[in-house]
């Protein structure tokens, strides 16, 4: 073996820079091509190292399907939300798709939302609230105003890993302070809402 000769050194030195430039061009081109010319997203089976998943235990069933509701009626139910995060994230709840009624029934269905441990969609037994309620005795119409992640209630800080939280929802049909005629005008009125929990990485 010989030490690199002058000629060899010169040739190599001259070649090195263009080589680096070619590699540079290739890598930028390749990356850009991969990222910006694809027309579709991943099919779902090759999630990257960081991903978040939020599920609930409702199996697609609506939490409340109240028919023939009478003044003074009330009901309490639970739903458990499970977060699977590979990066620390925040979960908040908010309302979407409010259904309004001309009789303003949504002003009279008042909702309390608490969160804690225990209980499930099927059965609230064992639920233990943690902290103060997120909303307390608030009409559906006000909850419908909370319709973005930014405004959402909760602010549940999810650490890396799987964690879950149960939300207890209580509603009551409150006709206090209304005249009988106003109360009667609400007969047959229908209101509704969807609850959504969203997780965003911090």
């Amino acid at each position, binding site marked *: *073996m*010989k*030490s*690199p000769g*002058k*000629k060899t*050194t*010169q040739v*190599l*030195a001259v070649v*090195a*820079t263009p080589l*680096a430039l070619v590699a540079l061009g290739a*890598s*930028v081109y390749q990356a*850009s091509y*991969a*990222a*910006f010319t*694809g*027309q*579709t*997203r991943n099919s779902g089976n090759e*999630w*990257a*190292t*960081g*991903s*978040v998943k*939020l599920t*609930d235990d*409702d199996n697609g069933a*609506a939490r*409340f*399907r*109240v*028919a*023939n509701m*009478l003044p003074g009626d009330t009901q309490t139910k639970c*739903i458990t939300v499970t977060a699977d995060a590979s*990066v620390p994230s925040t979960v908040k709840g908010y309302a*979407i*798709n409010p259904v309004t009624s001309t009789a303003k029934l949504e002003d009279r269905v008042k909702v309390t939302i608490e969160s804690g441990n225990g209980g499930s969609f099927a059965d609230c037994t064992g639920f233990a609230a943690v902290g103060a309620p997120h909303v307390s005795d608030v009409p559906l119409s006000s909850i419908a105003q909370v319709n*973005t*992640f*930014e405004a959402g209630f909760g602010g549940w800080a999810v650490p890396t890993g799987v964690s879950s939280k149960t939300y207890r929802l209580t*509603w009551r049909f409150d006709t206090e302070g209304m*005249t*009988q*005629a106003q109360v009667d005008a*609400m*007969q*047959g009125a229908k*209101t*509704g809402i969807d*609850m959504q*929990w969203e*997780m*965003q*990485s911090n």
Partner: protein
Amino acid sequence: MTATSVLDADLQRPAATPRHASEVRDWTRLAAVLLARMYRTFLLGLALIAVAPVVLGWGSYVVRSGSMEPSIQVGDVVVAKPWTEDQRVRVGRVFVYDAPAATTPHLMVHRIVELRDDGDYTTAGDANDLTDVTPLPRSDIRATAVLLVPHVGLPVTWFQTGQWLPLAAWLLLTAAAFALASRRLEGEPPRWRLLRLVRDRFSPRPPPDGPSGSGRPSGPGGSATTTHGRDGVRRSRTPLLAVASLVVVGTLASTASAGFTGHTRNSGSTWTAGPWAQPYVSAVLADAPYGFWLMDEPRGATYAADRSGNNRTGQFYGSLQLGTPGGLPRNPGTAVDNTGGRAVLGTQAVAAPSAYSIELWFRTTSTSRSYLAGFEDDRDASYSLFGSEADRSVTMESSGRLTFGTWPGRSTAITTPRPYNDGAWHHLVVTSTAGRATTIYVDGAAVASGTTSTLLSYSGFWRVGQGSIGWLNTPAFNGDLDNVAIYHSTLPATRVAAHWAAR
């Protein structure tokens, strides 16, 4: 030389090891310098590509989070061309946009995956399971991603997230690489002529290219010391400057996040108010009653709510029990089981009406004379001969037949032909005109009619369950009572039938 070459070779063999070592060192050194140069070129090139478009008015965005992985990694720089309203938005491409509905404004890099019916777009991170929740309005789109410069923004993300260890390691490595890269190789002309001239003028040291200009000497020791000494000067200048400027440029670069999102939804919760205004109640209210007491109060209640809207709250007295099963099949509610008590209907005494109607539901098996409903000048259970007035009362005979017109001092009465103490619920209506033409309806049909006893004019209270029909004669009704309505008008037969039909 040629003749002795074999000998030389033989002689040199023992010395081969150190000689070989120096060759390896030389090659290693060459390779290191060349690699460092390639790294320098690569890094400066990346930085240039990442930063240069800014001159054109384009934007460079360091990606902060990884929801676009694997195509865009954290620390990559997205070079994006500004987007204007007149440009097309191609679904499937990656855009830089203002995160919609965010209180703290920040830029997002995500793919637009759908044009919604309302003209907004749906965005998604490639690595997110679900699409982003908040739709993206056209006006929030800032730029179309054009070039992706890999990794070059990593120091910026390290700096912004306070990852000082990798940042320091990278800075050291880069500084070292830049220093190594600026070593002059054998046979290369001296560079930085201007700088060197200046240095030569002011420096007392000999010009550095003297020994190296004559080519690499075969003795390794001499060469090593010379180059080391020469490099000592350079290392303190350009590499650090270059790295420092890179860092400055880096911190100036704007960042865009590609955050992970997920959501879950519980849909379709609905609340439908029931028809609590019962048909019977509606039928009664349509006839504007003076008062209407459903008797639906729970057991133990002392006041009877007036459903008519006239606030004539009734009060329960004596021996009775609320909350027993009600009398109307299609109108849920409870009844009052009266044994010796009464309900006085209204809190204030009112002038006795000349035309009136009494309506109630009853059920009994009693065989003693009893008082169903009537009008009296006081609220108590007794009757005093002096100064007491009571009339307009409907009673049940011991036979179970219903009578109207028998009150203290009067006896022009009408009586139903058949008894009703059969243990079934019955609907009773008594109507009377100002001319005292009275009709008794049972179960919606008129069963007795005629002129009844004269009336007194005084102020008093309507009552049910117990009242005065003569001196010391104050019998109570023994049975269930429900849905009591009083009208200060004469109900027509059609309305009575309608009430019955709505039961």
